[in-house]
């Protein structure tokens, strides 16, 4: 309740009557709509991202998929050295300021387990619609998405009333501290101009690193024997290691809002270490798994608390033969 400041309460008075009774299922509906809009609407805007003491300005152009062209997106960093991410269909380019261009390609999507069943569940988050606010000149629903356990972070989300697009997001740790903030300063929803669309066509001249998934990897040899409740596998890829020559098996899990990925890489450096690092909203944990003479680097990266990432990391093991 402490989240609701006077301003929001006043604004809530203008909200429709239905709002006051909004509970879990309405919020679930809104969140599902947010996910849908983010992919199926065309929009462009600018937003700020704040984490720790830093503030960055970014811009986004998003084009919904059409008959003859895939969904595409361009996110550009407007501060400091120019960097951009261009995503089109199953291709992704990341250009860095030093001329380094990474190209990613994922094969046809792996059969995704229970992807839609996952959603954002009332079982793991306390979902509340708490008011109406204004962000970037647009009216927004303010949602509280607070975890019911300590394995995930909480969120305050502002969704555009008209389109359900995410206008502002605050990530809250279990001490109630805000660890990151994303906020649109301007947003236009609807057809993109031809000039804008041209920006999406732009491709970096040369990819210095190409990271291609194996088109149809065999079943994963690895599994996490412990997952926080509600997390389901979303995705799987087998790719060359970014730091070595082996293939890396990666498994991405989601509870509908938080994501983390488990990477398993056979060791070849001979230098094994275990560490964990917290970089803004991301937790990263490295562990070593030993199977006879073979060592594996297990790395977990995601927007989950460090403790959760640690627990997942030490639970990773080869798939136990089905019994």
């Amino acid at each position, binding site marked *: 309740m402490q989240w609701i400041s006077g301003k929001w309460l006043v604004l809530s008075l203008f909200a429709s009557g239905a709002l006051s009774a909004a509970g879990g299922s309405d919020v679930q509906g809104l969140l599902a709509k947010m996910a849908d809009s983010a992919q199926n609407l065309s929009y462009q805007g600018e937003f700020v*991202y704040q984490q720790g003491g830093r503030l960055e300005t970014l811009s986004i152009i998003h084009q919904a998929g059409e008959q003859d062209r895939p969904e595409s997106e361009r996110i550009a960093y407007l501060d400091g050295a120019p960097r951009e991410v261009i995503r089109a269909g199953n291709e992704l380019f990341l250009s860095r300021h030093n001329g380094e261009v990474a190209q990613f390609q994922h094969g046809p999507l792996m059969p995704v387990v229970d992807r839609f069943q996952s959603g954002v569940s009332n079982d793991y988050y306390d979902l509340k619609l708490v008011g109406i606010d204004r962000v970037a000149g647009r009216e927004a629903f303010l949602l509280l998405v607070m975890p019911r356990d300590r394995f995930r972070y909480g969120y305050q989300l502002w969704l555009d009333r008209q389109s359900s697009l995410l206008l502002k997001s605050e990530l809250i740790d279990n001490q109630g501290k805000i660890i990151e903030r994303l906020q649109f300063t301007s947003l236009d929803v609807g057809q993109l101009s031809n000039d804008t669309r041209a920006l999406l066509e732009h491709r970096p001249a040369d990819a210095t690193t190409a990271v291609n998934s194996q088109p149809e990897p065999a079943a994963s040899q690895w599994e996490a024997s412990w997952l926080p409740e509600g997390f389901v596998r979303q995705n799987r890829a087998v790719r060359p290691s970014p*730091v070595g020559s082996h293939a890396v098996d*990666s498994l991405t899990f989601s509870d509908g809002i938080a994501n983390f990925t488990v990477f398993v890489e056979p060791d070849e450096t001979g230098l094994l270490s275990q*560490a*964990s690092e917290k970089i803004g909203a991301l937790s990263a944990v*490295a*562990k070593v798994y*030993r199977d006879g003479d073979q060592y594996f680097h297990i790395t977990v990266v995601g927007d989950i608390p*460090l403790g959760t990432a640690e627990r997942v990391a030490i639970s990773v093991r080869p798939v136990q033969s089905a019994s």
Partner: protein
Amino acid sequence: MSDKSAREQLKESLSVSLDGQASELELRRVLEGINNDDSLRSLAGRYQLIGDAVRGKTSKYAGVDISRGVMAAIEQEEAAPVRQAQPKDSAVAQSGNFAQRFWASLGKVALAASVAAAVIVGVRTSNLTPEAPLLAEHEPAVLTQPVQLAQTGLRDYGVASVRAGNNAESRDNITPEQLAYAQILANQATRERFRAYALQHAELSAVGGAQSILSFARLTSFDNQ
């Protein structure tokens, strides 16, 4: 008698180090002690198993004991046949005795030092997490693991120097500088991996997710490090 009490002390430190409470100095002493003493070595393994059992978890990690890793690394060093020269290295070899000796001694040191470094890394970071107290009830908060330095490596996280160490005698005199150096290497390798994986994580979550904006915005945190 003084020998015996020294061993007792070492045993004490050993248990402390496996609990993750040892200071850097103590840890080094323990690791050196383990190398030279068979009974201590098995004790180390037992302590660790006990620790894991107490924490209510026996995983595959539990069977892993540092002493074996240390010994394996040392044995490998001592028994190592002359390595097949790779193009890059042959240049070094030709450039004279000094370079060879330099790499050899450095290799020996880096080997022992990285063993300590990696263990220290694990100990240090595990105490940073705010969730640790909560988790300690269910899971081992600290896992002490073996570090084995392979003979061949394709990447250069100081591995070049490690694998070159075939002949040197002295492995026990690690200076603080060398220890620090090994630590830096270990951290570097891990950070490079974190960074690369964070990018892949963003890409993988963007594929099916609604939050691609957040995923990519978060990469700025890495970029500015």
